[in-house]
């Protein structure tokens, strides 16, 4: 689905620029903000088909915003990205209803794939995608993860 409106919240300007360009090239309409309050206003106004949000922002933690967004607009897919490399952040994001967690720095192509998938089936939570390494629950050594990490994992609903 191209031509969707994507709401991006990240307090890092460089990341906003990159997301803006990468998604605009896919034909999406991108709106970016550096704080959680603006993102919340947009969501509350019923804008956007997808949210991509950072965790640590100056005014509010993106994870705290998640349940509120889910309550108001349960159908709106949310992708959480963070520079925190702990598995805990990933688990927490998924528990709170995030469609996908992307550890920074991520590969632009992975991002585009995730966005496409989220827009195509916003309502159908995918089954756990990770079949490799059954002993490592929640770990996925092959999926998109932080581009650099040997701890490549991803949690998907």
């Amino acid at each position, binding site marked *: 689905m191209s031509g969707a409106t994507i709401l991006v919240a990240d307090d890092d300007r*460089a990341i906003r620029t990159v997301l803006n360009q990468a998604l605009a090239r896919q034909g999406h309409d991108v709106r970016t903000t550096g704080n959680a309050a603006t993102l919340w206003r947009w969501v509350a106004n019923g804008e956007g088909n997808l949210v991509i949000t950072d965790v640590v922002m100056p005014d509010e933690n993106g994870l705290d915003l998640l349940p509120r967004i889910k309550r108001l607009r349960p159908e709106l897919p949310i992708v959480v990205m963070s*520079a925190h490399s702990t598995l805990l952040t990933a688990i927490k994001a998924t528990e709170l209803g995030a469609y996908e967690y992307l550890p920074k720095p991520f590969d632009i192509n992975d991002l585009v794939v995730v966005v496409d998938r989220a827009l195509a089936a916003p309502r159908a939570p995918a089954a756990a995608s990770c079949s490799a390494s059954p002993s*490592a629950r929640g770990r996925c050594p092959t999926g998109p993860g932080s581009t650099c990490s040997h701890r490549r994992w991803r949690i998907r609903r």
Partner: protein
Amino acid sequence: MTAGVTAGAATAAARKRKHQAARDSAPDSDAIVRALPDPVVLVDGDDIVRYVNPAAEQFFEAGAGILRDRRLDQLVQFDSPLLALVAKVRDGLAAVTEYGVDMLSPHRRARTVDAQVTAIPDAAGWVLVGLRERTIAQKLDRQLSYLGAGRSVAGIAAALAHEVKNPLSGIRGAAQLLEQNASLADRELTRLITEETDRICRLVDRMEMFSNDHPVERTPVNIHEVLDHVRRLVQSSFGGNVRFVERYDPSLPPVFGNRDQLVQVLLNMVKNAAEAMPEGGGEIILATKFEPGLRLSLAGGNGRQRLPLVVSVRDNGGGVPEDLKAHLFDPFVSGKAGGTGLGLSLAAKIVAEHGGGIEFDSEPGRTEFRVLLPLHSDGEAV
């Protein structure tokens, strides 16, 4: 100093002779002050600067010729706590020290120093001002405590990783976007940017892991499953260049430890082995065995310990460079162009936390790293 405690009588005598020789040509006091790494400023009773050492020239970003004969309050801000310290000493205190004094340099660069002001005996009003600039770690620590992020090394590493990864995301993303329309030649450059940012990212990831002091969960771990996992990971990135041979003792009991950490340890060692392979390919032998007789005394441990579980990684690569051998497990020791030198130090740290140790033998064509671990029964290390 401490070396003297263990040295024998003969070497002590030799050292005494050497000291005697040194005393004959001792440097004068000026040379000593000049050699001090920290800024030193001598101020007379009228607040006029009479002497600065080279470190002070650097600190105040001006030559001694300019600094000398200036008034102290022209070097620092008029409201600097330093002036109050000087006044205190003139009021009769022999010496005062103030920690964490903020100073602005002539170019308005904010710096934090510890300042010590000492009275010069028999010279009315003359004082010696010594400054010591705070290290980056101390400054970072202070900033972190402002943020309430904690003062631990782990806290610093985590905050640093976070701060570094955000700009890295921007750089990496921008490079990838440029790549989409780049010529073949330029694509080589954008690839370079993404690869190098990934390297920085790996480095901060490792630093974070390295300083991680959270307690980890321990369970009985099947070390063969761990080895299998590691082998697959390495095989997928090194491909056919490496042939694996497995020599496992199937009766080996489980290791009591943290699986992910043990994967990390063996991954670092097997990766090193794979990276040491000759061009045409090579062989890595993964082996486990039970050596009930093995007793080792570990640094910091109480007495000799039994470490009967042995996991070894052997390769037929070029061997560990001779000059690295003594410091191989120290952080940042690397013989590789792109190496961070953290792999083995991290492995050593984790294994030590598991109550074990790592040893190695290396010569060209045959290098073996061995992880020795204690036996556990019923959840308790023996």
